[in-house]
């Protein structure tokens, strides 16, 4: 397949470099401030084995609307099919030395990034050379046998100037595995990415994903996320507008129930003039679920004319449900427009009564209100199968709630 360059000496050296870092006694495991609200301990408690290469089981995660796909199991590409001609797959070997040097740039230089680099079985490179005819579906799956495994997948997406990509990335698992993933996107000048990200790990799993986005001049990056699985999850999105006139849209949804902990951590850095960014993140939290939203917009001194907005809305379905929300602005330029905010609410009893008075039972009314809450985000997903999955997850949240 031309992907596996795991044996390359330079690749091994790159990994060794990270091993050396991890083993330094003063190497920071994590930044306490950036992790406020989320316990790191669960990661450190369970001893884990690096996941072996596993065969594909069944016809996993097939989405009829997405014929072009790459399946990555335990960090290795096991299959790919139906990819558009404008998209090429490769590995470490295909990266230029400049591209190799840029790996990990913009991501926190901590234990998690280093561990991913040290343990990644192979590097997947997706190169976009033109305007693809259809989306690329990147399915990540981790499966362990009896004992908890650690999976460190990593992919790099490179967009040539003026190209476009619709990318769907899914993360799923079986068993009590832990994923420590990295996904890096480099958008060339004038390129456009529509990125849909689904976290649907198994209920016993742990999931950390770092998405690093580098935007050149006049590029456009839009990310829709749904985080629904795993007992512990954290999605970090690090966007850096390194060119002028770049636009960024983050539109995320956290569906949290049971005893799940779900953290959305985003940092958008405007480093050049006339940047634009908008972020909407919504959390629906049921039962004893805990959600964290920590979103930062940074505007560097050179980023005059930046227009940034960020809002986080939270809907709590139970007394025990918790959310920790921290929208933040860090502005170092004068000529900017920035706004941010957050809201937390319960299901409105007046709305529930109105629906019930029209014959809609309490359970359906709750679901309808949750759907209404997320609708502005969910309706933008152009894939009915994935929208239906979200529907099912919301149904589970409202159903389980009624039993409490």
């Amino acid at each position, binding site marked *: 397949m031309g992907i596996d360059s795991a044996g390359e000496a330079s690749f091994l050296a790159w990994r060794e470099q990270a091993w050396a870092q991890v083993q330094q006694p003063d190497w920071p495991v994590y930044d306490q401030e950036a992790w406020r609200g989320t316990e790191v301990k669960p990661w450190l408690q369970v001893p884990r084995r690096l996941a072996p290469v596993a065969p594909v089981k069944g016809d996993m995660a097939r989405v009829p609307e997405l014929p072009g796909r790459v399946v990555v199991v335990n960090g290795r590409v096991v299959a790919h099919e139906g990819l558009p001609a404008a998209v090429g797959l490769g590995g470490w070997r295909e990266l230029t030395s400049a591209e190799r040097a840029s790996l990990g740039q913009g991501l926190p230089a901590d234990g998690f990034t280093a561990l991913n680099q040290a343990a990644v079985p192979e590097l997947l490179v997706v190169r976009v050379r033109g305007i693809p005819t259809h989306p690329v579906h990147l399915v990540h799956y981790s499966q362990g046998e009896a004992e908890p495994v650690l999976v460190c997948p990593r992919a790099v997406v490179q967009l040539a100037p003026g190209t476009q990509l619709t990318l769907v990335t899914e993360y799923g698992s079986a068993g009590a595995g832990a994923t420590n993933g990295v996904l890096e996107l480099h958008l060339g000048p004038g390129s456009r990415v529509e990125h849909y990200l689904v976290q649907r790990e198994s209920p016993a799993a742990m999931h950390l994903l770092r998405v690093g986005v580098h935007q050149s001049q006049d590029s456009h990056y839009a990310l829709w996320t749904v985080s629904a699985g795993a007992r512990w999850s954290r999605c970090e999105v690090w966007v850096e507008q390194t060119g002028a006139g770049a636009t960024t849209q983050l539109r995320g949804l956290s569906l949290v129930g049971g005893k799940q902990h779900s953290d959305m951590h985003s940092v958008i850095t405007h480093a050049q003039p006339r940047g634009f960014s908008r972020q909407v993140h919504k959390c629906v939290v049921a039962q004893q679920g805990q959600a964290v939203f920590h979103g930062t917009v940074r505007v560097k001194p050179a980023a005059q004319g930046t227009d940034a907005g960020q809002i986080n809305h939270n809907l709590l379905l139970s007394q025990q449900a918790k959310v920790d929300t921290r929208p933040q602005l860090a502005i170092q330029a004068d000529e900017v427009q920035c706004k941010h905010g957050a809201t937390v609410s319960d299901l409105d009893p007046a709305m529930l009564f109105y*629906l*019930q*008075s029209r*014959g809609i*039972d309490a359970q359906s009314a709750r679901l309808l*209100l949750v*759907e209404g*809450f997320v*609708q502005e985000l969910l309706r933008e997903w152009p894939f009915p199968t994935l929208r239906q999955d979200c529907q099912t997850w919301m149904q589970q949240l409202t159903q389980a709630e009624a039993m409490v």
Partner: protein
Amino acid sequence: MTVATAVEAEVLLTIRDLTAEVEGVPILKGVNLTVKKGEVHAIMGPNGSGKSTLSKVLAGHPDYRVTGGEVWYRGQDLLRLAPEERAHLGLFLGFQQPVEIPGVTNGDFLRLAYNARRKAQNLPELDALDFDELIQEKLRIVQMDAAFLSRSVNEGFSGGEKKRNEILQMALLAPELAILDETDSGLDIDALRIVAGGINQLIGPHNGVILITHYQRLLNYITPQWVHVMAQGRIVRTGGMALAQELEARGYDWLLGQGDGN
């Protein structure tokens, strides 16, 4: 209520000595009322007399606590039923202040409500296509544009549009008993005509209507058989259209002393 004599079969709603409170404050202090099929009752009275409370208690609003009395509706103990069960039995409350529900389209809401009642009646639910045909017909009654179906429920609707949307729901659900809580308030003359027209379409030998209104002007379009005056949590006077006209001429003050010690 198991004895179904010819006379009793005509009765839709019987309220006996109903008392209710909200947040510990007694509002209803012994309401008695009987509504038969084919009847239109107007309940008038000053602000704070308990008119709206009565309508919410009948619809099952959770903020209102019934402290005494009984309500029978179509042979059932109404107060034991959940709000949606009351709706399934054909009880409809037209809200004084219709609730806005962001993100839920009016069309989806109407179809869910309609099919919920169909299901309760063991009738097959309508699919989107058949429902569309039905709702188009109902939209004409209230002269609403189909564009209202794709907007969020009541969100950004004007006062008049919200009230027309209530009447649209009523027309669709074809209730046996409609309780309309100040549906006429805040309407200009054209909207009032449309709303009154919608109500008149519902009225028939099998339905009852309770119009709760502060003013007589709605009664220029809809003629009730019975006019009741509520004051201080009770119905203090009952008459016909002549009573409504007298209220219009004299106001409520002359009746207010009659709330206590009745």
